[in-house]
């Protein structure tokens, strides 16, 4: 069996055990941290589908987290509480935004794609700040949360925790299947040599657009869950710096590696907590660490855990 699958099995096993292990140390706080890292990982895996497999470096991916979160929050404010219904709304809204922005952005490629996604991200951010009815700049605290057919099982505690683990797993598995499928192979072929893929008869732009839609919708779902966890939304979710953070997670974890994206997310959250507890100005260390990692650790964290041949297959 593939080492990366073994690794993922251990990872998810640990995540499932956490709620039973952690109370021994008595910590609600740690559970909150793990949820935060998992939500980051969901968005990062979706971005990795774009960057790692599609070669499309988007600097506006956090916008979809923001759009998903706001779609959910606005639904909740208007009395829609069923989480399944909110999920449908979130998918529809993020999908629609991705369809419009993606079909324009994909007319360009390379660094122009990076810039145009950045521009769309900024447009999203300013749109969210203009929603005066939903808090504008300051964001919105939610007084009601989503329910599952009236039950509050998906709102907090272990119910929410397992929902997030489940979503992370579904994302992992879904993107794994996509990367193994013919669709994923065409996507990578187009990344490595778009002209050739085009000549072979594949409508490259359509494949890329579909990948873009899928990635946006997954990011939107992480936004939905983020609302459930934080009970608060603000435009800050969609700033370009957040998109930068997502790229950091993806690249630190290792491109084209779902396990890497999860590790990257945990790494970032832990670094922030650990460094932050020693030093209020932890970014003074974090910034140079990023630079050093780029200069000296080219393959990302995943390289330390995954064998070369497994990586070749995943990439």
């Amino acid at each position, binding site marked *: 069996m593939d080492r990366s699958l073994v690794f993922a099995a251990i990872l998810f096993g640990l995540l499932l055990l956490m709620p039973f292990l952690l109370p021994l140390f008595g910590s609600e706080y740690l559970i909150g941290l793990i949820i935060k890292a998992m939500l980051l990982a969901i968005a990062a895996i979706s971005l990795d589908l774009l960057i790692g497999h599609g070669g499309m470096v988007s600097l506006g991916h956090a916008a979809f987290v923001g759009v998903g979160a706001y779609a959910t929050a606005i639904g909740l404010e208007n009395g829609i509480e069923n989480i399944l219904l909110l999920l449908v709304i979130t998918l529809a809204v993020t999908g629609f935004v991705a369809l419009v922005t993606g079909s*324009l952005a994909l*007319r360009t490629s390379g660094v*122009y794609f*990076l*810039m145009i996604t950045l521009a769309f991200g900024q447009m999203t951010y300013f749109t969210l700040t*203009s929603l005066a009815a939903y808090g504008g700049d300051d964001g919105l605290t939610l007084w009601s949360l989503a329910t599952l057919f009236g039950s509050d099982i998906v709102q907090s505690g272990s119910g929410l925790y397992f929902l997030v683990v489940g979503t992370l797993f579904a994302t992992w598995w879904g993107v794994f299947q996509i990367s193994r499928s013919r669709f994923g192979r065409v996507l990578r072929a187009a990344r490595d040599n778009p002209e050739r893929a085009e000549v072979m008869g594949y409508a490259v732009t359509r494949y890329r657009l579909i990948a873009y839609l899928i990635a946006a919708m997954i990011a939107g779902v992480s936004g939905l869950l983020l609302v459930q966890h934080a009970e608060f939304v603000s435009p800050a979710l969609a700033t370009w710096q957040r998109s930068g953070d997502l*790229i950091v997670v993806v690249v630190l974890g290792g491109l084209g590696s779902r396990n890497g994206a999860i590790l990257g997310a945990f790494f970032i959250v832990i670094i922030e907590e650990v460094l932050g507890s020693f030093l209020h100005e932890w*970014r*003074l260390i974090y910034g140079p660490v990023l630079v050093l*990692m780029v200069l000296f650790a080219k393959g990302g964290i995943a390289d330390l855990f995954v064998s070369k041949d497994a990586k070749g297959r995943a990439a």
Partner: protein
Amino acid sequence: MSTTLFLILCLNGLQYGMLLFLIAAGLTLVFGVMGFINLAHGVQYMVGAYLVYAYVQLTGSFIVAVFLSLGTALIFGLLLEVFVFRHLYTRSHLDQVLATFGIIIFLNELAKVVFGPATLSVAPPEFLAGSIQLTETLRYPVYRFATIISGLVVAAVLYFTISYTRIGMLIRAGATSAEMVSALGVNIQRLFMIVFGVGAMLAGFAGVIAAPIFAIEPGMGDNILIVTFVVIIIGGIGSIGGAFIAALLVGLIDTLGRSFATEILSTLFSPSFANQIGPALASMLIYILMAAILVFRPKGLLPAKGVA
């Protein structure tokens, strides 16, 4: 809308455009010549603003502080080039984004630690204080005029250097085909170091002249960086002329849009709707412009020839 107000806004837009051009010039050349995405370019603008603040505190003279700041910004840029950027030219855009993102995080935090999180300000020098009577109803601050003029002067010097000198020829050739220039025996590494140093100094200069107008604060470079990227994309990567036109376009559209978007919308829609949408639309105008231009001219308005 009165003519006077319109004129003042046009001048403000022109001045903002000049500021954007100073930052964009370095960024677009660095990108054009080396294909290097430098997200930290905006931070160099912030560094310029803090430097002039610090030197004014130290020396008490704005003019002395300007020259000291320019020198320091140049040295700072060269140090960054030697220790970090030089090692990233051959790496992917992704690595470049990541490393320069790390530099942003570090410098923003450093500014917060050294100068505090509060906004600071610098007074303009005395001989540039006050305002000029332009027409009967229009007075405009001298300092803002000075920024427009210094921007124009820098633009003219840059244009002359790039169009008529040997180094300018090499830069143009480098932006078109770095490999070819290198194959002809030009030390492209050194050429780039010069371009990079001057670019860092120009960004620093923009920060210096912005310091008396805008608030000096940590993170002030982040938003202007994004706007600068919009400028160089609209203008065409690697193109100084394109950057100049795009900077003016963006400066004017942004400034005028912020003042008139709500007014124009309210002629079409209900006032309450216009009030809600206007400010957001105004903030978005330049991004809409960029998206529209990219859709119709994917390489920008005046692309440098041969840039990928």
